[in-house]
């Protein structure tokens, strides 16, 4: 195996994107994945025979258009846009749906607050502008503050457009808003609890924070910047499951000449005199390479695969201090039929169930669900994000049958009492009971079910503390501070060694951006 010059650790989607770009540029690339399939957290399998489940990530709306085009993914996979992008059944039997079409959403909001309905279009316009600036940041390699180079300034010029469009008043507004709680933002605009709950939910879906915590406006706007809906959350499926997307990425990379090996676990990254020399596999095999790129989390990469004793003390301390603290569980159901939500009765039920369903009736509900986390307890009334992918893509299940996939918040990784091994059945019951409150026929439809706790996410998918994004996506771990200050440019203290996963800028989600940005920097260094 002497003829590789790049080894990529892991075959998660970012690794595959990096492999695609590097192989396209003529580098000899080998990708090493410990699991038996490619895709990492973006896979699809038949855990329940006959049902195609995407166990971890399922919605694909954050994928960068440029990556899609560059890696010829458009022709290989079919993206199914979902609409509504969120619908909220309410405990009192009412419901609110947010559609891609603003006018249609305005009509929905009118049922709750005419005043809010009137403001909604302006809110969308303002947030879109602000998110445009953040979007510009996502494709940039973070600068090394405070020593910003000329090349950084040139690269950042692309930001000038969105910033100018924003106008001075709105720039101040952006800086004022980012660190605030999303509740404050929404209170400045709206009065309806239902609307505010529906909007706030997306801001806290991927972080262990409640909507009353500082910085959740940042996560709200970050999602907005990435999403394919032009709104606050993404809502798209890949036909056949998200695993089809990563399979296509692997195909593209192979087409460019990359070699992809599964069932090979990297045991260590080998370093000599501060320079990377290759990797050693769990089976004892050594693979030499002048460039090693890790798609594993910073914790795994620096504290497990690299020998920490060769790294600077302050660096190790920083890596050690990265916040992970996951709090999401995933639960999947095979169903014999479509659940009925009485709150949607009269509405075109099927249409409403096509998009993600949020059990998030108000900001207070979300915040209370989070509050338990602070004391190491599972939420007693959880916030659920539900997708029934079979409504839009019936091919995933036997005819007439359905799949339901649920993200469950908050179920903190660090429990104060008891351990996760015993907690599973309790959470499963909580999820079923909670859904049954809104869809009473649901329990009777369950054919099979499966729960992934934060500890499962850690052990099966190598996500430290079950964090969904290889590190919390918070303002203090964003841009030049991701994964840690001083090392946000995909490079590491070890020469020839790079990171390409969501532990680096711009972070999590199936975006392809960390992989694309990393590949760009690696190619730059080779010049």
């Amino acid at each position, binding site marked *: 195996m002497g003829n590789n010059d790049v080894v990529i650790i892991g075959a998660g989607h970012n690794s595959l994107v990096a492999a695609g770009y590097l192989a396209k540029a003529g580098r000899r690339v080998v990708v090493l994945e410990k699991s038996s399939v490619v895709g990492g957290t973006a896979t699809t399998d038949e855990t329940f025979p006959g049902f195609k489940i995407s166990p971890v990530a399922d919605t694909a709306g954050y994928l960068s258009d440029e990556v899609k085009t560059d890696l010829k993914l458009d022709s290989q996979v079919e993206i199914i846009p979902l609409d509504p992008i969120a619908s909220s059944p309410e405990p009192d039997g009412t419901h609110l749906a947010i559609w891609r079409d603003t006018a249609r959403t305005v009509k929905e909001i009118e049922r709750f607050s005419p005043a809010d309905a009137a403001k909604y279009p302006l809110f969308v316009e303002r947030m879109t502008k602000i998110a445009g600036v953040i979007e510009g940041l996502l494709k940039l390699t973070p600068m090394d503050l405070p020593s910003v180079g000329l090349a950084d300034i040139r690269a950042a010029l692309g930001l000038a457009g969105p910033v100018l469009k924003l106008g001075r008043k709105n720039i101040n507004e952006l800086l004022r808003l980012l660190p605030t709680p999303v509740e404050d933002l929404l209170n400045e605009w709206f009065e309806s609890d239902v609307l505010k709950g529906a909007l706030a939910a997306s801001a806290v879906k991927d972080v262990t924070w409640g909507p009353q915590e500082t910085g959740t406006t940042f996560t709200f706007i970050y999602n907005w910047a990435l999403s394919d809906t032009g709104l606050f959350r993404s809502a798209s499926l890949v036909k056949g499951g998200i695993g089809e997307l990563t399979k296509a990425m692997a195909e593209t990379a192979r087409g460019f000449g990359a070699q992809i090996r599964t069932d090979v676990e990297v045991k260590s990254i080998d370093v000599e005199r501060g320079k990377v020399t290759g990797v050693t596999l769990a089976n004892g095999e050594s693979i030499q390479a002048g460039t090693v790129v890790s798609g594993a989390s910073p914790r795994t990469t620096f504290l497990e695969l690299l020998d920490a004793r060769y790294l600077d003390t*302050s660096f190790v301390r920083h890596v050690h201090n990265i916040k992970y603290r996951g709090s999401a569980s995933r639960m999947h159901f095979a169903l014999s039929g479509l659940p009925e939500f009485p709150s949607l009765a009269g509405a075109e039920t099927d249409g409403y169930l096509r998009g993600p369903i949020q059990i998030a009736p108000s900001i207070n509900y979300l915040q209370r669900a989070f509050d338990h986390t602070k004391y190491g307890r599972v939420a007693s009334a959880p916030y659920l994000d539900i997708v029934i992918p079979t409504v839009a893509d019936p091919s995933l299940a036997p005819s007439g049958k359905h799949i339901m996939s649920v993200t469950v918040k908050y179920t903190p990784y660090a429990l104060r009492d008891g351990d996760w091994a015993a907690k599973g059945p309790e959470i499963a019951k909580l999820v079923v009971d909670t859904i049954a409150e809104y869809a009473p026929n649901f329990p009777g439809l369950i054919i099979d079910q499966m729960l992934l706790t934060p500890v499962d996410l850690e052990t099966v998918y190598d996500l430290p503390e079950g964090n969904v994004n290889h590190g919390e996506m918070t303002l203090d771990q964003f841009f030049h501070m991701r994964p840690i200050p001083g090392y946000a440019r995909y490079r590491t203290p070890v020469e020839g060694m790079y990171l390409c996963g969501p532990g680096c800028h711009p972070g999590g989600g199936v975006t392809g951006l960390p992989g694309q940005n990393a590949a760009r920097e690696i190619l730059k260094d080779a010049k």
Partner: protein
Amino acid sequence: MPRQTPFHSRTNALCESQNWVEWSGYFSAQTYEMDHIHEYNAIRLGAGLFDVSPLFKYFIRGRDAVALMNRVITRDASKCGVGQIFYTAWCDDEGKIIDDGTVARLGEDSFRMTAATPTLCWLEDNAFGMDVEIEEVTDAYGALALQGPTSRDILQQLTDTDLSSLKYFRMLETKLAGAPVNISRTGYTGDLGYEIFAEPDQCEGIWDALIETGAAYKLLPAGMTALDMVRIEAGMLLLDADFHSASTAMFEVEKTSPYELGLGWMVNLKKDHFVGQEALRRENARGPATCTVGLEIDVLALEKVFVQNSMPLQLPYQSWVDELPVYSDSDQRDHIGRATSGTWSPVMKKYPVIGRVKPQYAKIGTRVYVEQTVEARRYAVPATVVKMPFFDPPRKRE
């Protein structure tokens, strides 16, 4: 209020001056008598007994103990034999010195480390992923330094172990006046001397035995004033005097490297890896920005300055710690460094000073000028770069 060391009942009874200072949170005698000079004389002519219990002490044990020590210190810990002690520095990632102290190898996989500043957190930060146990034992042991030409004779009265075979920078476990102790031939005086570690409940008995036996050997309990004079004679650096710790320095310019402190001999660039090694490798290649030197002030020239002011010569009666400018010329135009501590040396009848100058002025015999203030006026008094230690009696190692 400062805490009391395990010797406090004894040191307090002897401390006529009640001149206490705080040392790392403990009471420490500045002088025992009202004046320090008898204590100074005892160290050089008989023996001085210091309570050095406030030193920070750590045990490092486990399979990776050598690996941890080697990651932290600049010397090669694997070369430290069991029963041997290393004086060593440790640095931050940028190769700037954090502290210096001793590392004693107690066994294949265990070390005792002493430090002037709290070091537990630094050790733990560096032990990431290692199979090692780090225990702070600052309070678990009292420590004494018995220093001076008669120190061996005193100790020998109290133990069956033949101390003549205990070499410089070696240690052994034995009994002293019946109490289990660890004795090392180390110290901060540049003289023949020992350091004794014992568990707190043994401390008073050991102290009493040493004072009683020492009476016939010109032994006196000695305080920090006398200690600072002899450490300067011995050319030993003091933290927060001759250098600052990189971990507490507020500004980059306050940090120094082992090379700048004349401790380059303890930087092992060949060993596998240690914190700061890369930075030190680069510094070694380009040469340090400043060099620590011994300076000897020309006392006759200094006298002339006093005479000019119609005064008799006045020499410092005890040591000073300061930052005095050093010039290459008597006109005080070309500033080349600083003097950081100095003392009149009664045994040498000389005025040694420790300082840091630009490398081109570090050669032995170079004439430089140290600022001295006489009658509120600043003069540049000639001084010569001399070898350190200033005072280096053969008995230290013999």
